[in-house]
């Protein structure tokens, strides 16, 4: 794994916050892509229980349709399933979420976004999972599958908060390239 798992680029948000984080001009030399992120927003998001705010992802600037199936749950509760999709402002997903402003200071979410065969000429399937928490209170585990109808290679990926709050300072996302040989 180590020889084929390469950090392409990393973004860390500075003191002024940021509306979004974009990886552009992604080389087509890998087999799969993976983003590892840890984010917090400057906004209340969904509220305090859980202190979560949905993420949004956009490939190649615009275009295509996103079909989303997600499952999420709070401790000691049955998981909830939901689906979302379409285009424009309906690409929300719980997986890949940020911790909201109502969580204690210094708490950030953790998420992974896996994009197999990102240069394929077929629609892409994306897997996401994350954890958000607030000092072990209102912890959520979220998993999500997205199908994006785009048939060109993914060359840019934009991450932002679905409610359009800014990412807080020290939010970070790292893009890795994975080769199959």
């Amino acid at each position: 794994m180590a020889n084929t798992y390469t950090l392409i680029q990393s973004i860390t948000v500075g003191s002024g916050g940021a509306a979004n984080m974009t990886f552009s001009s992604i080389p087509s030399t890998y087999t799969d892509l993976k983003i590892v992120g840890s984010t917090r927003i400057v906004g209340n998001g969904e509220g305090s229980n859980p202190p979560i705010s949905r993420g949004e992802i956009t490939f190649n600037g615009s275009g295509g349709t996103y079909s989303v199936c997600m499952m999420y749950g709070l401790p000691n509760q049955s998981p909830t399933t939901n689906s979302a999709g379409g285009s424009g402002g309906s690409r929300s997903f719980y997986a890949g979420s940020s911790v909201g402003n109502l969580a204690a200071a210094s708490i950030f979410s953790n998420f992974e976004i896996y994009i197999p065969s990102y240069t394929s000429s077929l629609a892409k399937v994306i897997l996401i999972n994350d954890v958000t928490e607030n000092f072990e209170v209102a912890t959520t585990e979220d998993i999500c599958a997205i199908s994006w109808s785009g048939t060109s290679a993914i060359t840019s990926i934009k991450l932002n908060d679905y409610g359009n709050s800014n990412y807080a300072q020290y939010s970070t996302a790292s893009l890795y390239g994975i080769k199959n040989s």
Partner: protein
Amino acid sequence: MTIAIEVNCTTGEVTERDLTAEEIAQREADAAAYAARKAEEEAAAQALADLKASARAKLVAGTPLTEEEAATLVI
């Protein structure tokens, strides 16, 4: 001013720029859509909870359930 951060994965160049007027307008529209969607989801969740409570109460009281109430109890 709100900024966007972009890293060019080929050159490594990092660009931090202010959002354009168009991006700000889109952001505001998206935020409004998000608020509307969230309100819809909350209303739907409350309606389901109300339906389940009604079904539960009728079961305890031994009164007939509506089709809609029964559907909340039968998987």
